[in-house]
């Protein structure tokens, strides 16, 4: 096959694909008006009505994410773990540039250091209070990772110790699965809430939910930090 023939074949294929996509887009928009976007029904309605009774958590999103559909969350945590592991596996041994082209100015360099503990504290607050207020493990973890990103950007030669990240993410993941297994051994159902529920609004309430969310917070925080560290200064 000569080059021109190949090109033409691709063009016909592209037009075909274009029309298929167009067809589905059209279908999708014609269907949007048929969707029911105002009513809360089905399982969502059940969650709203029974959240407090089932989990004693003030944040219904948290009870769905960690309790009702905790198994999915375990899966999502694994997805993140995989993304970090996969990236590390692919990037391991890549050439990294250690030196920044222009160092950050003194204000930035001194400013980020006191900011680090404060940001970490804020992140920890978000995931510890996941069952009481908006937020949770994923959000808190992201905030913590941001604090390390500041350090990496502002301070020349700042390095995260890989051992710490490895230990944190492993132990956090193990905690999540272990809590699940305890539920299985004690109550016969994986991830079942085997701790006393307490009263809604208190810090020590909702049984295993805060434990899982703290584990998720540590895991997300360490994984995102690891991801950032892996990508920092890689020459493409």
């Amino acid at each position: 096959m000569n080059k021109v023939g190949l090109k033409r074949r691709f063009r016909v294929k592209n037009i075909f694909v274009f029309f298929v996509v167009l067809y589905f887009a059209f279908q999708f928009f014609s269907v949007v008006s048929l969707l029911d976007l105002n009513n809360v029904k089905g399982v969502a309605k059940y969650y709203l009505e029974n959240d407090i009774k089932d989990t004693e958590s003030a944040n219904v999103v948290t009870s769905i994410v960690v309790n009702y559909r905790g198994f999915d969350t375990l899966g999502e945590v694994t997805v993140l773990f995989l993304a970090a592991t996969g990236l590390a596996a692919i990037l391991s041994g890549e050439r990294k540039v250690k030196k920044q082209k222009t160092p950050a100015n003194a204000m930035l360099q001194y400013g980020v250091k006191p900011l680090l503990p404060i940001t970490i504290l804020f992140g920890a607050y978000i995931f510890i209070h996941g069952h009481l207020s908006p937020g949770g493990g994923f959000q808190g973890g992201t905030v913590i990772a941001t604090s390390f990103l500041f350090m990496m950007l502002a301070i020349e030669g700042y390095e995260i110790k890989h051992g710490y990240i490895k230990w944190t993410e492993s132990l956090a993941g193990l905690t999540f699965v272990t809590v699940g297994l305890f539920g299985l051994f004690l109550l016969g159902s994986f991830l079942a809430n085997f701790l006393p529920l307490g009263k809604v609004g208190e810090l020590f309430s909702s049984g295993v939910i805060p434990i899982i969310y703290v584990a998720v917070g540590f895991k997300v925080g360490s994984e995102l930090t690891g991801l950032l560290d892996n990508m920092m200064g890689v020459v493409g």
Partner: protein
Amino acid sequence: MSWFSPILMVGVPLFVAFLIPLLGYIHKKAGLYAMSLTLLFNTVAGFYFLPKVFVKPIRVIVAGYKPPFGINLAITPFSIFMACLISLMGFLVSLYLLKDNTTETQEKFSMLILLVVMGSTGIVLTGDIFNMFVFLEITSISSYALTAIKKDRKGSEAGIKFLLVGSISSTLLLLGIALIYNQLGTLNIADIANRFSQMNPKVAFLAVSFLFLGFGIESEMFPLNAWAPDVYQGAPAPVAALFSAVTVKAGLYAMVRFLFTVVNMPVFVKALLVFGVLTVIVSELSALRQKDVRRMLGYSSLGQIGLILFAIGIGTTGALKGAIFHFINHAILKATLFLTIGLLAKAAGGSTFEDLKGIGKKYPFLAGIFAIAALGVMGFPPLNGFMSKLMILTAAVKAEHILLVMLILAASVIEGVYYFRVLQIMFKEPEPTRIEKKAIPLFSVIPLVILVVAIVGIGLFPGVLTPYLKGVTMDIMNRSNYIAAMLGSVGGGL
């Protein structure tokens, strides 16, 4: 033993996967052994539950909430059968990996392998459509990383392609699931199946189309499979074996479960038939043109998937039985082919026809195993491929699809042409002098021997599997049973 629940087939691999990074401190190879042992555990657990599930389906409740409010595992004959196949093939491949000395990424490699198998197991065991999506994500993301792990040009290219197409697949699946959830307010598969007719027909059609396309990409259906040959060629050989034996099978499971149990739309089953036929024609003809054995095997694998797809599309009991039988046989045969060609290519320094000239004289044992598996794929009696092809053929005759009968036979002839060409190159060409013969590690030989025994054994005694195939087919065809077992009081004890 109420705690010995099938959910451990997901929970334990996850636990070990999180533990593997720490095991590296104990021993350099501890991670690899842990992975292999875990997959052995999964296999044992799978076969422990297999007879029980065939008597009565098991419903495993997660987090103590009854479906549809919580997530549950829906373990029916079809799912446990697939789970056994996936775990067993995963375990055999993991044995092969024990002596694979790619040192620096070993730990991550074993973790990824473990999670691919765990994700595929989750897909077949779960009874919740969003949970299935999550497991599909786990499987896909570990697959992307495994494809590119060697960091050579081919692997990276294949990994990127895989990533792009896979993301489209996930997006489509998520859209489809969202449409269904919007209409029915539930994510439980049995619940959706039960109330599917309540959906607005237009929305339902679009949702099913999205899911059909999404699962079509996962199960390598033409024209959505352009990424697959690159992946089969670029990924490390054991990984390619794992893909064709494990992940594709999970995608096919999702497709079948969805089309037969969840929705009752014959038009999509017919579409499967058409796409299956196209997959066979295009893949087999492309395989004929290849100069690289790994790539050729990739296309051949797609051809077999096409065969399975259209057998499912015929939709009769006999055809489904044949399709399920071919699931197993294809997994065994392709795993054998990829594993042997991996060893041969490593010895010869490449997998093109040029590289492999006369390799059969240098490594008669490995090349012999390759030859047996190749004959099995072509469908030579008394090997296992013959039995399942015969079953599909008989079903096609019974359903009076004469064109399909001709297609199966023609495809087998084409397979014969390209496989015999490889065998001729391997055995007829003069022995190469540039290659030094090295001993093959024992751990690589054990799984190959087991696989060859399976190829011949299943071919000689297909009767061992017949009752299981019957149970699986009944499970697929009888959707009201599934719904009753998962929603009603009929459900099993857990």
